[in-house]
């Protein structure tokens, strides 16, 4: 863990140093990032708003990874989930409060779970690689979502590619203490639920027989088969669950803030989720913190456009990449010591 954060810090420092090539003072840039991410309650609220979907997507990647699968499909899964939640809210606008968000969430999770299940099933039964399949499913989801948004339930009051608003009963707002603590920001109770879900995933992985079977399949599928654990079944379930976890993004987006599905609402949450899981070394609790760091970075970079002339918000991508490299170098270190250890035997 320590080394992971050392890798994180290293990546950040190198990235900031790069800004001096553009004639900026790295300390000044660091200051902007910091202030933009945590400078005020409003800024912090926005940071936490970005953190929420990153927790869900990080958990999705981490869970799949424990079963030996790489879920690059978070983006498609969360798109399908958010679209489904919005569609339920638009088609059934009169459902009363406690039932409405639950219904939308259930629909969202089921749809995202199905999106993950398809990849898991194809992998387990047909042997198609989940990386390829999930990437393709991302495109399918994006296409479906655009069509559905523009042709089936478009927002009549807007020129933007977005769905109509869901019924009033779907919003968490009036009951949402998190949102009340950060007024004027889109952050919502979904953050608390994200943390709760992370703890649930941790319990699932480390305290239950299902989590054990999942990890055994991920670590050594041959041994799992011998032990009577069905690799196929576990892999299908793992991808389904991973999809559902990414599907939780709908909660914060539709019920927590926007009340609709907007095409392109996701700032690549599904992909940043991969970095989050990597940073957290697939530990569900670590995912919470890693998501917070990535969320802060995302928010922090948003002010770079305004405050400097030479550095744009795209710079956050450079920082992210360097951080991933920094963390991955930790992996290299582990790998080196491991192979040394292996050679030692006999």
């Amino acid at each position, binding site marked *: 863990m320590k080394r992971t954060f050392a890798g994180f810090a290293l990546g950040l420092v190198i990235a900031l140093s790069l800004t001096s090539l553009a004639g900026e003072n790295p300390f000044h840039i660091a200051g902007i990032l910091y202030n933009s991410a945590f400078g005020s309650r409003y800024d912090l609220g926005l940071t936490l708003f970005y953190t929420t979907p990153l927790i869900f997507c990080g958990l999705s990647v981490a869970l799949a990874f424990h079963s030996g699968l790489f879920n690059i499909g978070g983006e498609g899964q969360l798109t399908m989930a958010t679209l489904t939640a919005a569609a339920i809210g638009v088609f059934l606008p009169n459902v009363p409060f406690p039932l409405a968000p639950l219904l939308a969430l259930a629909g969202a999770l089921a749809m995202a779970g199905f999106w993950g299940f398809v990849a898991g099933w194809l992998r387990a039964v047909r042997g198609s690689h989940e990386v390829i399949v999930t990437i393709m499913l991302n495109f399918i989801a994006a296409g479906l979502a655009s069509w559905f948004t523009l042709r089936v339930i478009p927002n009549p009051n807007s020129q933007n590619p977005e769905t109509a608003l869901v019924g009033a009963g779907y919003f968490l707002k009036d009951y949402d203490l998190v949102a009340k603590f950060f007024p004027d920001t889109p952050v919502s109770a979904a953050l608390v639920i994200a943390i709760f879900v992370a703890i649930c995933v941790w319990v699932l992985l480390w305290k*239950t027989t*299902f989590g054990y079977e999942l990890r055994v399949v991920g670590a050594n599928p041959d041994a799992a088969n*011998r*032990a*009577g*654990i069905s690799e196929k079944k576990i892999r299908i379930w793992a991808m389904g669950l991973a999809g559902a976890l990414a599907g939780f993004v709908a909660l914060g987006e539709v019920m927590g803030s926007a009340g609709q599905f907007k095409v392109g609402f996701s700032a690549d949450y599904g992909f940043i989720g991969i970095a989050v899981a990597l940073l957290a070394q697939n530990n569900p609790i670590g995912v919470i913190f890693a998501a917070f760091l990535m969320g802060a970075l995302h928010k922090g970079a948003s002010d770079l456009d305004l405050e400097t002339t030479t550095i744009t918000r795209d710079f956050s991508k450079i920082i992210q990449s360097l951080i991933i490299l920094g963390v991955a170098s930790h992996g290299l270190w582990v790998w080196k010591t491991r192979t*040394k250890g292996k050679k030692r*035997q006999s």
Partner: protein
Amino acid sequence: MSGQPAVEFTGVHKQFGDCISVQKLSFSVAAGSIHAIVGENGAGKSTSMKILFGLYPPDEGILKVHGQEVHFHSPADAMNLGIGMVHQHFMLAEPLSALDNILLFQKNTKAFQGLRRREHRARLQKLAAEYQFDINWDVPVHRLSVGTQQRIEILKILSQDSKIIILDEPTAVLTPQEIDDLFKNLRKLKAEGRTIIIITHKLKEVMAVADAVTVLRAGTATANKKISETSVEDLAEHMVGRKIKNLSLSSRTQFANQNFVMKMTDVNLADKHGTLAHLNLQVRTGEIVGIAGVEGNGQDQLIYALLDPHHIKIKGQIKIKDQSTVKLTAAQVRALGLAAFPEDRLRFGVVSGRPLYENFILGYHNSTEYARLGFFNFQNIFAKTKAAMEKFDVRPRDIYTQIDRLSGGNQQKLVVARELQNNPDFILAAKPTRGVDIGAIEFIHEQLLDARNRGAGILLVSSELEELMTLSDRILVLFKGQIVAEFLRGNHYNEIEIGAAMGGRA
């Protein structure tokens, strides 16, 4: 060269992290001799040879080759000095032909330099003929037998005209006949003045072929002897550091009973790697049935047919405790009370990177003892693991240690403890002592005999004839998927006859 040792280790020390692999190791190998290095797993055999081959630099100490102090930076340096090594796991490019594999190994070839294949082929064929190696040069090497693959490895080294040849566990995969051939060749190489170092744990072979032997224990040499001055028992004692019991077989009851725990009737199956044909096989209660045979003659198929029948198309009948199993999944078969020691521990038996207690419950993790409603009862798991590690003397005795940190012997003991935890009625023991040190072998054999005397039926699949002859009440020889011979335990088994049957000459 006379009198000058070919290889000399003086106070060599090598440490990986906190783990000392080789310490103050001193021994010398006389030029033009066959020198055996024996020791248990983790004693430092391979490490010391890898130091000699330039794979690891020593931390301390002096290494001399033909009297010259050397500092190798890579195997290339060692090869330039005429040292060649045949690794235990062959370093062959499997889809390439024998010819290409050897050409791959030629030094002094520059990039884009023309490869005079025909010349090389003629040269290599001549070389092979000299040693009566019969090699098919143009077939992908993975289609050749392991014996042939080994000869290709040796040819690789001979083509470099190496004077010092290191062989790491060369007999592990060979039939008795092939071992004989190998030894003949080793003697021939010796007669040419080459120095041969073989790493092995088979003491009988040491006695048969070597001139001198160095015994390693815990990274240091506990004995340097001439073969004429030692015996198998003596070497074993030096390896383990104590006397080894001889398992007594006299207390065996005749198996009058006809209670079969496992019965295979006319079983036929075929998969990518092999077949079983008209297999009839029974295991009674209180009986150990040994399956002998050279690897790849249907053992894997037999194991799969028993453990995971659901995935293969099986013609015929398999019954475990009167339950037909041909349609069952792995989990269902296990539920019948079958315990299995996996033939390849690291691949099938343990989950690396995970603590011992997680490995201890593998396959038993759904039992009510360990889990309720899908949630683990860690108190029970820890207690059971601890108790089993106590009983089976698994070290270090720390249930939170990662399985990888254990020696092969201790890993296997944990696997054996796991599989025996419910007193199974039928045990499939596949290569139960593969890659396991002598002390642990003895222990595992005792456990198998205990289980047998308790009334369990045991099917023992092994490539170690010695092990089969020690433990089995009956030995069946598997050859090309068929049982070609059966040997009953009289006073003793005839090794030659069994060996002949293994080679298909029943």
